[in-house]
């Protein structure tokens, strides 16, 4: 049975260690409640960019895991990113796709191709080191240690229900520029040993 995205995020939050996290769209409201003081930056206002921001962070900080919480509609907007992410070969890069087959935020219209789109196959074809799907919470719990330690680029499709809130129903939260500034300051302070 598909998992609730909030339950998946809670599980990840509890085990993520010092990972940098990049939520987008419907994972954003839940993540800022579950992990408000995390090393996070949400992809807001340019749909499809989450994995690219995550890739930049992963290349800048190879010593730290980077977890991207992408959406299926979002990924379809920048599908070429799969090849760029795979080609960059960052071992610390984990691309988690929260798959619900709809554009939830804009009213739950079905994504092009619906559930016939095989994102795992596309990620494998693009060259990700590993790509697989997880269909329920117990499987995520069982495989999470591997997800958080295996060499990337890693692609994991999580089959989820709709989120309780979208960015439109929950409000947009902290402005993107403020999130950017806060994460940069935190990372520079860590680099300076402050």
């Amino acid at each position: 049975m598909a998992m609730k995205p909030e339950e998946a995020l809670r599980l990840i939050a509890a085990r993520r260690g010092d990972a940098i996290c990049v939520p987008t769209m419907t994972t954003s409201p839940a993540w800022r409640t579950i992990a408000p003081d995390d090393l996070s930056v949400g992809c807001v206002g340019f749909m499809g960019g989450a994995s690219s921001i995550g890739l930049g962070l992963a290349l800048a900080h190879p010593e730290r895991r980077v977890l991207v919480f992408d959406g299926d509609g979002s990924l379809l907007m920048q599908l070429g990113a799969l090849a760029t992410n795979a080609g960059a070969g960052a071992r610390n890069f984990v691309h988690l796709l929260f798959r619900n087959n709809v554009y939830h935020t804009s009213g739950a219209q079905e994504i092009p191709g619906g559930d016939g789109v095989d994102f795992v196959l596309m990620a494998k074809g693009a060259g990700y080191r590993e790509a697989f799907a997880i269909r329920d919470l117990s499987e995520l719990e069982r495989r999470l240690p591997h997800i958080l330690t295996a060499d990337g680029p890693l692609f994991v499709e999580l089959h989820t229900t709709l989120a309780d809130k979208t960015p439109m129903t929950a409000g947009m939260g902290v402005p993107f520029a403020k999130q950017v500034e806060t994460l940069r300051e935190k990372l520079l302070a860590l680099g300076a040993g402050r």
Partner: protein
Amino acid sequence: MPESIPAPLIIDTLKDTFKEARAALAAEGVRTRHEHLGWILSVPDTHQKSVLAALDKERALRVLTCSTEDEANAVAAGLWIGGEPVVVMIQHAGLYASVNTLRGVAMDGRVPIFYMIGLLSREKDKDPRESRHSMVRYCEPLLDVFGVPHARLEGPNDVHFISEYYRLSRERRGPAAVLVGLETS
């Protein structure tokens, strides 16, 4: 008349620009964890192909080829947040393709992104704004609409604009660009 700029001159200028950026971070006590000087994010531009070819042999500059300019903008944001110096090398058509990301990332996100934009098909004897090619003609006006400061590299004497506009992007916490007037040599 505009002149072509040799690739080694551009690459040396990029290295100097990145060294200055690293020095600024070091002055804040930030330790670099990398051996390279900085990143070039490219969606290959025919106009700057001699620079891209020369970059293939460079060890001090890391090059990442992106599928789209949208990606290049967002990867640049991640690298900058992570403390890495970065330049985005694209073509005017790529600028047109990625205006929403330019707006969302560099402007709304206040991420300093410095662009080197090739004016492919620019006529040597014409001001770009008078080009018969719309992709050349609309580039500067588009940057003006978005309030992106820009300068033209019209010959070897203009390469100082690379470091100046890179620095400007950091100072204003937003986009800045130089336009490569003729194909690099």
